[in-house]
């Protein structure tokens, strides 16, 4: 029997029982599309985060004060150390050739007020390099002064939400704003960009880093952001940053350096693990579909006993009979899988076309494994019924 014969035979058998074929097809398609659609949500989340990161500029290093030798622990997020990381330390990093931009950050909370309106928000003290590194742009007004690291100028740039809360519909440019005990002139308004990795820049004020040092009465930097000239320099730059800091800190490199790649791959690992386990849970439904295949195959074996007997008496071997049944369930499974693939990809396509903001993407690995799994299941679950068909005694079967 060649492949075309097999195909014809299976097709006839399936077409004769349209309803049950359709139901198996439906069951397989449900299983396949639940795997694909659920993993597409996870993959979408992964892509979303990747995109957020690349929005930060791709060649960034983050320097945190403090260091921990505990294996596998989180980085020292508190950033409190006996030896502060200072603006001068950040300045010294500019001597490293592979670094193009250095943004020291002092962060703190304070009450910001304009006449009777006030708001408690996060204040970022930094310099103009911050705008390059984080891809921030101004909607109106002017940048922080170039000498933000050396002089405490009383100026600030504010986010859109803060501007709305404190100035209503008036233009904030040129107005005076009270932050803590000091007054700052608003010189710029940030372009609205929304949340960026947990920092709501719409509700923030940015002031020169030297002014922040005075405002919070502390020279300690919260972070230093570095931008590399080329991402290949990452490893060597990390070594050099440690060297420069330890020269300045009595031989102790008491800092932690996080690269953007390391952060991204940590996120990726977690999300892929979650996505894969959700996919695996969805795959249980393929298993249930497999049981249905087995059940229906048994029924068709017993309904087609006479036919099998005839085939066998005409010289078909047990192996050929087994093949007939296995192939027929593989055929219906491939239709079901195809239906599931078409359905899922079109759903994702339609959502993508209508709501471009919802990130959905079917990962290649889930597509492959869904196809692979459904064929394995079809094989496994049709094996027993096919065996039963293969052992049918032709004489008994023909006698009815």
């Amino acid at each position, binding site marked *: 029997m060649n492949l075309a014969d097999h195909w014809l035979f299976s097709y006839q058998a399936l077409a004769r029982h349209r*309803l049950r074929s359709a139901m198996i097809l439906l069951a397989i398609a449900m299983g396949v599309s639940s795997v694909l659609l659920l993993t597409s949500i996870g993959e979408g989340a992964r892509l979303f985060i990747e995109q957020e990161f690349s929005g930060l500029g791709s060649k960034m290093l983050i320097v945190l004060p403090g260091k921990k030798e505990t294996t596998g622990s989180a980085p020292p997020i508190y950033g409190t150390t006996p030896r502060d990381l200072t603006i001068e330390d950040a300045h010294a990093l500019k001597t490293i050739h592979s670094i193009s931009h250095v943004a020291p950050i002092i962060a703190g909370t304070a*009450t910001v007020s304009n006449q009777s309106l006030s708001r*408690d928000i996060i204040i970022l003290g930094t310099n103009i390099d911050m705008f390059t590194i984080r891809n921030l742009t101004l909607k109106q007004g002017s940048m922080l002064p170039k000498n933000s690291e050396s002089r405490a100028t009383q100026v600030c740039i504010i986010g859109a939400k803060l501007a709305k809360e404190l100035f209503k519909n008036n233009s904030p440019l040129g107005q005076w704003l009270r932050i803590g005990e000091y007054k700052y002139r608003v010189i710029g308004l940030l372009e609205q960009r929304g949340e960026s990795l947990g920092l709501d820049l719409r509700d923030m004020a940015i002031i020169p880093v030297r002014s922040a040092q005075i405002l919070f009465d502390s020279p300690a930097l919260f972070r230093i952001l570095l931008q590399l000239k080329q991402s290949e320099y990452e490893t060597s730059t990390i070594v050099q940053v440690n060297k420069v800091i330890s020269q300045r800190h009595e031989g102790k490199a008491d800092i932690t350096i996080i690269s953007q790649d390391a952060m991204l791959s940590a996120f990726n690992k977690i999300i892929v693990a979650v996505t894969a386990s959700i996919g695996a849970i969805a795959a249980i*439904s393929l298993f*249930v579909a497999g049981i249905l295949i087995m059940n229906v195959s048994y029924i068709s074996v017993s309904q087609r006993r006479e036919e099998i007997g005839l085939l066998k008496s005409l010289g078909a071997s047990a192996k050929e009979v087994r093949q007939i049944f296995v192939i027929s369930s593989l055929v219906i499974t491939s239709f079901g899988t195809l239906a599931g693939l078409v359905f899922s990809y079109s759903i994702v396509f339609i959502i993508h076309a209508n709501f471009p903001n919802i990130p959905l993407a079917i990962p290649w690995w889930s597509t492959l494994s869904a196809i692979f799994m459904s064929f394995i299941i079809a094989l496994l679950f049709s094996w027993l019924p096919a065996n039963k068909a293969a052992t049918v005694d032709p004489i008994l079967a023909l006698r009815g």
Partner: protein
Amino acid sequence: MRLTDYLTWVYRAVNAQKRRTLLTIFGFSVGISAVILLNAIGESLRQYILQEFTQFGSHIVAVMPGKTETFGVGGLLNTVRPMTLDDAISLERLPAAKYVVPVVMGTAQVKWYQRGRYTDVAGITSPALNAWQLTLAQGKFLPADDILTPRDLAVLGHTLKQELFANNNAIGEKIHVGSHSFRVIGVLKPKGEFMGVNLDDMVYIPTAKALRLFNRNSVMEIDIFYHENIATEKFSQQISKLLISRHNSEDFTLITQDDMLKSLDKILRFVKYAAAGLGVISLLVGAVGIITILTITVTERSQEIGLLRALGFSSAHIRYFFLGEAIVISLTSGILGYIISMALLFIAQLFMPTMPIVFEPFVLMLTLIISVIIGALAGWKPASKAAKLEPVLALRAE
């Protein structure tokens, strides 16, 4: 027709095709088990995390300097309105306050002769021993010195002690934390992690010393453990009132354990229901199985149905026969699925004794009800098909 006749009919129908019925039941029960198991895993996870959070009791209020309306990191950042040790002292005077622990966290190099280790430093006060339920392996905990002028004493976590001293005696030894020197007076037993922070790889020093070490004027957080006989809201109001009168404005953030647990619980419940929702897909596929098999059965038995109709059975009777069969199959699946899940959970508990496994009778009831409903829905189409068969045509079929 009497009920017993009806039941006998359904029983015979189910029994006549044993393998077919068993496979259908098995398929559907896999779906049921998926839902129950995922729900149970979600519930265990919820309880595990809540236990983690309530291990220090649930009567805790944390006060952090700075008031941010948008962000929850308050204490870590700088602030123009510091929260001081004097605030902690005045909070201690509240009659309902049991333990008050002002906390400063940071990292520093801890050194003993030539051996050094960069690790976490926790600035705390003596009530932390009871409040955080720490246990000593050796020596004593930080004594109840004056909060503002404590002595230079330190207590080491288990891992840190091993890293610095190995098997040497640590008690009474002088160590350096940053550039300050401290005398070790105690070593803690292993405690594990709390929210990603390893409590064993840590040196505990008095808060006032930590403030000086880190050159800070504000503590990061004041944890207040209070007596159980006062309502959370009342106590938080007392704290707010006291601090507002000291600072002349509400420049702090107050988080009660209750609030935190509530929002955490919300998230965890969502995760649990989402997990159970994933299981429902398998259940639906199982329902497709019931529909398919029953339809096949109806076709096979059309002759028999025709005979019954010819003998005067109404189409409603026929419908009930097949609906009954569907419900018996789904109900059995429900029970089987529940038994499978419980067996699997029981085995899981043998391997993970710390994971709480919850038996919810409510879930069993719900499972059975849902099984019956899905069974009835799945059986409806085939049963109607059977009911609509023309007796004459059905008899002629063969």
